[in-house]
C-alpha cells in the first residue's frame, strides 16, 4: 500500500499524485490528512484500485468514477459519486447533499445521515444496477427523478427525532426501487410512487446488500426485520405522458 500525505496539498496536485501512482501500477493507496480536497477518485477507471481516505474529502468525491473502491474513514461532503459508472464508495460517517446524482452503476454505502436530493436521477441500464445504502436519515427530495437502481434508507445508525426522510421523497420517480426501514406518511411522498410492503424476492435481494453494507462498514445493526420496511416503486415509467398535446 502506497501512502500519500495530503497535508497542505492543493486538490489538483493531490489528484495528479493519485493518478500518477495508479499509472505506475499501484493498486492500493492510503491518502492521509485529507482536508476537503475535491474530486478525489474523479474519473478513475481501474477496477482493482483501492483508495483509503483518512480525513474529510471535499466535494464531488468520485465524480465520473468507473471502477475503483474508495473507503472514507470520516464524513464526506456534497456530490459523492456524481455520475458514477461503477465502483464502490464506503463512507464511515455522514455525507452531504446530492449523493449519487445520475449514478448508473456501482455501490455507495454511507453509515450515517445524508442531506438533500440524495439518489436523484439514479438510473439502471441492462446489467448495471446502482446500489446505495444509507444507514442514517435523509433530507428532502430523496430519490427525486429516480429512473433505476436500488436505494435503501435504514434510519438505524442515528437516533434523533426528525423523520426518516424529508418532503417530496421520490417525486418524479419513474424507475428503480426505494426501500425504507420505517413507515413513511403519504404526505412525504411524490405522487408518482406507490407504497408496498416487502415480498420474498425483495428480502432475497436486500439480504446480501445489507450484509455487504454491514461488513464493509464493520458495524452490526439489527436491520433484518423486513416486516418493518416499505418499498416505493413508480406507478408509471411515463409520469408525464399525458401532459402534452401536439
Amino acid at each position: 500500500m502506497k501512502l500519500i500525505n495530503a497535508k497542505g496539498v492543493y486538490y489538483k496536485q493531490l489528484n495528479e499524485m493519485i493518478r500518477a501512482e495508479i499509472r505506475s501500477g499501484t493498486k492500493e493507496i492510503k491518502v492521509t490528512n485529507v482536508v476537503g480536497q475535491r474530486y478525489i477518485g474523479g474519473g478513475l477507471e481501474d477496477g482493482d484500485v483501492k483508495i483509503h481516505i483518512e480525513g474529510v474529502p471535499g466535494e464531488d468525491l468520485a465524480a465520473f468514477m468507473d471502477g475503483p473502491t474508495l473507503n472514507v474513514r470520516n464524513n464526506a461532503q456534497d456530490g459523492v459519486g456524481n455520475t458514477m459508472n461503477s465502483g464502490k464508495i464506503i463512507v464511515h460517517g455522514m455525507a452531504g447533499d446530492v449523493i449519487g446524482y445520475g449514478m448508473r452503476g456501482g455501490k455507495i454505502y454511507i453509515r450515517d445521515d445524508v442531506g438533500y436530493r440524495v439518489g436523484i436521477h439514479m438510473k439502471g441500464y441492462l446489467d448495471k444496477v446502482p446500489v446505495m445504502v444509507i444507514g442514517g436519515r435523509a433530507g428532502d427530495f430523496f430519490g427525486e427523478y429516480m429512473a433505476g437502481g436500488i436505494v435503501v434508507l435504514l434510519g438505524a445508525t442515528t437516533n434523533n427525532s426528525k423523520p426518516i426522510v424529508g418532503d417530496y421523497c421520490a417525486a418524479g420517480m419513474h424507475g428503480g426501487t426505494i426501500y425504507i426501514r420505517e413507515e413513511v406518511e403519504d404526505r412525504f411522498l411524490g405522487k408518482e410512487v406507490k407504497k408496498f410492503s416487502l415480498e420474498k424476492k425483495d428480502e432475497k435481494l436486500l439480504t446480501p446488500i445489507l450484509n455487504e453494507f454491514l461488513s464493509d462498514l464493520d458495524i452490526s445493526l439489527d436491520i433484518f426485520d423486513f416486516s418493518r420496511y416499505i418499498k416505493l416503486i413508480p406507478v408509471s415509467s411515463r409520469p408525464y405522458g399525458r401532459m402534452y398535446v401536439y
Partner: protein
Amino acid sequence: MYYEEPGARESLGLRTPKHEDLFHSHPEYKVERDDAKCIRCLCCVRQCPYETTFYDPMRNVVYDVHSNCVNCKRCEVMCPTQAIEIKKWGCGFRENHHWKFRDYGAAYKQSDTGAVVLTGLGNDNPYMSYFDRMVLDASQVTNPSIDPLREPMELRTYIGRKMENLEDFGKESFQEYPNILAEVPIAFAPMSFGAISLNFQKGMAAAAQELGTFFNTGEGGLHEDLLPYKDNAIVQVASGRFGVSKRYLMNSAACEIKIGQGAKPGIGGHLPGEKVTAEISKTRMIPEGSDAISPAPQHDIYSIEDLRLLIYAIKEATEYTRPVSVKIAAVHNVAAIASGIVRAGADIIVVDGFRGGTGAAPKIIRDHVGIPLEVALAAVDERLRREKIRHMASIIATGGIRSSADVVKAIALGADVVYIGTAAMLSAGCTLCQQCHRGKCAWGITTNRPDLLARLPVEMAKERAINLVKGWSREVKEMLGLMGLNSIESLRGNRLKLRGVGLTKLELETLGIRQAGV
C-alpha cells in the same frame, strides 16, 4: 368536428363524435390534387407520415384528411407528375389583428385536452430581427478591399481559453490551455440523438470531420457509430446525464455543460418514452421505453460556485485535456451570468438566442421567453472586455443564424464561432413545418422510425451539410475581403464594421454599433 343537435347525425346514419374527438379541427392547409395529372402511383399515400393522404381502391380515389396536413411538402416534392399543391385552407377566420391562428388554434387544442401545447423548431413570432437592422461596411478608395479568390483569407479559429500574456512563452511558468481548432467559424449546434435521427447526426459528424469543424452530441450521449468522429465531437453534459461517463467525456474534442436552451430558457427537456428505442436506449444508457427526463436545473448547480464545481469535475476527469464549455440561453442578465461563468472556469461560453430551435418545447415558452441573440451577444462581449476577461473564454453564438451574413454580423458583435442547427437541418431537406416533437419527420431528420430514417441517407446528409458550410464560408470570405480584412480574427468584436438602420439610440447603444451614415 362540431357537436350538433342530438339526433341530427344519427338521422343521416353518421357516427356521433366521441368525447375525445376534437371539437374544432379546422384545417390549416389543403392538399389540392389535380386528378387529371394523378396516375394513382400512391407515392403520396406512402410518403405522408401524418395520416393525411389515403387511397380508396373501391372508388379508385386518392383522398385527404386535410386537417392532418402540416405542410411538410413531402408529397408535393415527391409526386412524379407534380399533381399536388398544398394551399392555405380557405380564407381563415374573419380578419383580426389581435387574435391570430397561433393563439386560437392552441386554445382549441387545449380546450380539447387540458394539456400543454408542444411544438418544435424555433420561435416564429414576428419579433423584430436585429440582424435585419444591421448592415456591413465596405472598403472604398481609402482602404483597399481584398480579393479572396487570389489572396489568402483565414477562417481558422482556435476555441478555448487563451494565455494571459506571451512574456513567459517558453518558460516553465507559462501556462497553456487546451484549445480546439475550427477551420471555419461555423459548427453544428447541439442536437441530441433522439431529437434528431442517427442518420442526420452521422451526416453532421462526417461533415464536421471533413470541414475541420465540430458537431455537438446534445444531451443524448454519443452513439457508437459516431466514435470515428470523436475528435470533432463536442459532448454535452446536461441535467439528465444521459450516456455521460468518463469514456464519453474522453471521446470528445471538448465537453459542454448545458444549462439552458434558447428555445426554452429555464425549463428542462423531456424525451417521451415512446421515442426511447433500442438504439437510443443504448446511447443514453437508460431502459427502452422509459421517459428521459432532463429537469430544468442541474440539481448540483444552484450557484456560480456550484457551476465551478462541475466544470472542474469534468476538467479533473479529463485531466485538463479538454476545454469545458457552458451553454446558456440568452436572458435578461446574460452579461452578468456570462461573467460569472467565465470566472467559474469555463473555456467556452455558448449564448443561445430566443430564435434557437428545439426538438420539443411548450409553444408558449418557445414563443415568449428569452431575448434576441444579437443584443445578448453584444452585451456579453462588452461585459467580458470591460472586465478584462474576454481572453479567458471563447464565445459561441447560436439561435437563429440563417445565412453567412448572420455569421459575419454575429462575429462582428463579438462571437468567435457560431453554431448552426436549423440551417443544418435545412441542408438535409427540412421544410420548417415545426413538427419535430412528433417524431414523424417526413424528411428523416427528426425521427427514428426506420422507414422514415431511410429517406435521409448519411452520405446525402453529409454532402449537403458540407456544401452549405462551404458556400457560407465562401461568402464569409467575400464579406471579409470587401471590408478589407484577411482573417476572421480581425472581425471578431469589430463593431465598426456594423451600422444600424432604423434602430433607436438605445438599441444602437445596446448593440454597441453606430447609426448608418455616421
